């Protein structure tokens, strides 16, 4: 509807509980003035890294905003991340590869997506510990591994989880996403996948012919005139 009339507001500034905004970025807006259309207006958060961070520097976790998980929550994060990515004969566990700091940094970040994820994760922690208390009168982190698995198995696939466990299943899916994101972006994760790139090469030869032949894919580009 092209004639819809929307009221301009300083949307970002008006939203409750949003951290301070970077100075000097506010546009010259007339609050309350009516124009047709939606305003696209961006004011970077003070606590974010801003639209022009130094890209060549390597950052420690927590370089831009403080990590916020308490020791119990970090312990729970360690245990759950390692249930999701345990050490095996190929590579270390998620926590050994730094996943706890990654997840802490993620849910401590000031951006809207991360603030939503923070709620999901912290609520999920409450559910996990609550469920563990019900079963065995102790927090999740100190359960036997088999008991931990039994709990996770109920929520590891939202498509199979019962209706009353849909929310914990969403939490588990998010936590798994964060854990694999953490693990496979580290050296340990790349090694596990035998990722070979990111090293300068003199020339690039493409896949070995034997592999293509084995897959039945060794005929190359169709010659000129074919399929025309």
């Amino acid at each position: 509807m092209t004639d819809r009339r929307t009221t301009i507001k300083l949307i970002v500034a008006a939203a409750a509980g949003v951290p301070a905004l970077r100075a000097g970025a506010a546009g010259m807006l007339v609050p309350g003035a009516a124009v047709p259309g939606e305003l696209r207006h961006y004011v970077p958060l003070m606590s974010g890294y801003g639209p022009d961070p130094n890209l060549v520097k390597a950052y420690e976790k927590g370089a831009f905003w403080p990590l916020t998980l308490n020791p119990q929550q970090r312990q729970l994060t360690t245990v759950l991340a390692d249930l999701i990515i345990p050490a095996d004969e190929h590579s270390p566990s998620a926590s050994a590869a730094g996943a706890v700091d990654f997840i802490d940094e993620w849910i401590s970040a000031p951006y809207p997506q991360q603030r939503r994820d923070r709620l999901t994760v912290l609520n999920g922690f409450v559910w996990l510990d609550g469920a563990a208390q019900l079963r065995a009168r102790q927090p999740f982190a100190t359960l036997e591994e088999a008991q931990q698995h039994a709990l996770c198995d109920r929520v590891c696939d939202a498509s199979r989880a019962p209706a009353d466990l849909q929310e914990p299943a969403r939490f588990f899916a998010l936590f798994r996403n964060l854990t694999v994101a953490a693990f496979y972006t580290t050296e340990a994760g790349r090694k596990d996948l035998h990722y070979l790139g990111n090293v300068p090469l003199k020339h690039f030869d493409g896949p070995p012919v034997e592999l293509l032949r084995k897959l039945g894919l060794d005929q190359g580009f169709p010659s000129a005139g074919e399929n025309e």
Partner: protein
Amino acid sequence: MPFVTASTQRGPYDVIIVGSGAGGGQTAYTLCMEGVRVLLLEAGREYSPAHETPMFQTPDMAPLGGSVTPDKNFGFYDATVDGGWEVPGEPYVTVPDRWGGHFTWWRARMLGGRTNHWGRISLRNGPYDFKPHSRDGLGFDWPITYEDVAPYYDKVEMLVGVYGGDESRENTPAGPGDTLLPPPPPLVSDHLFMQRAPKLGITVLPGRRAVLTRAQDHRTIPGKLHPGNPRAQRILAEAMRNRSACLWATPCGRGCAVGANYQSTTVHLPPALATGNLDIITHAMVYEVTLDKQGRATGVRFVDAATGRHEHASARIVVLGASACETARILLNSKSSLFPNGLANSSGLVGRYILDTVGSSVVGQIPLLESLPPLNENAAGGLQVYAPWWLYQEQLAHKVSFPRGYHIEYGGGKVVPSVYTFQGLEWLTGGSYGRKLKQDARRYYGSFVGFDGRGAMVPNENCYVELDPVVKDRFGIPAPRFHWQWGEYEQRQAAHMQETFGALIEAMGGRLQSPVVTDPVKAISPGGNMIHEVGGAIMGENARSSVTNRWSQTWDVPNLFVADGGVFAYNADKNPTLTIMALAWRMSDHILQRMRRREI
């Protein structure tokens, strides 16, 4: 001292160029190499690919694993400075279309503009693309033909370095044979596409991107590009020697520290600066073209974004290359008693007929590509192969429900694992975790392929940009207000993309997480999302039906030119940037001729 300020300008200048991206960069290059004194005004900050590119940084060195945030909309390492879908302090307004969709506008505020991070896909328009109206009665013909532009495609390809196959297909031309660099060898997943696509009548060709798959031929190219100009040849040869060949290693969207791909800051500006004829003012936000009593351009007014001071710069000729929509904004904002509706707008067409590219994407998972042995598949950073449009004759015979085509950009392979690589694998793994999840990750890594349709758009009256009557940016310049409405042709084309990609994935023995989107309204990406926005100062045969003539010169103001995508009378499926550069070079040659004849 090539970087100057408002107070240290070293005028008089022959030409002012606004914007340092593909259009502005090419214009600065061509003019400076021929001895023209140029002042380039760029709204963003200075930017150095050699020092600022995170070449080998891995995601774990970045906050949030380098993922997308409101500060960096394409991820931490993307070479976009102070930009993205929104620019701090520079708001815009979008009026929703009939279905609630919104136009989106991607900008960067840095020397070189969006050429620092663009995808580098470089396809030539074909003969049909310049005369679409003659072919099917829709939209507008350009006032020029493929043959007019072909020599400039040749030159741009040689200058910037584009890899690709030298085979021509219907409306998919290649140069005379020596303008392209060798394409990278196809990956395993590319071979599968090449093998199965012909079952659907689709031919796969080597991709074309502005990446140096080998060092440039600095001995012969300078002579071809600058005959009779030994100084320009020397400068260009030196600039080419300073660019290294591709390292086959790093994501091009971060930019390239070794100059192996095209960025204005790597290819156009260094030789232009080396001539001594180019001065650059950064942080210079241009908002108005100034005129003399006869209605000729005298220069531009700009705000120094660092100090907030309003400044003026003058020259014999003004060239706008601020990107299509921003150029329209500057023209509309340049109101005077001579031009009450904005400058060069006697046709009323400034800001009209904004075009983007039709986009629609599908990802598939391919069992044949699971658990492949270790492979280095970084290649040249993208688009080893692609498929040009294949139904031209069927369209002519009205056997297709939309008149203009699309090409398929394809990609797969064992690319560097990112935060997104293994998100939401449940549909394949049944929600595995533990040792099984690690096995699943190994199995599925590199088994996904993506199809991106990029399609032509017929110009329509409902897509335009004007000045918002209320909203202003932080400099006090009226913000642009966008109107957008896809036509039914584009929507049907997007649905066709979805169906085709579904069929291709099936032909490759693959599977889809969810069915393809066959509802035409839902299949298409919102306007502006493909970041190929052009038009708004369209080129045409006469002053009533267009803003610029065949030389990108405005009809109303003889010493005012447009160097960016603003002049596009039509947006074919081919990504626009190579054509922007070819037209900017052609325009610059024309300016040189007219200057030498003292006509402007």
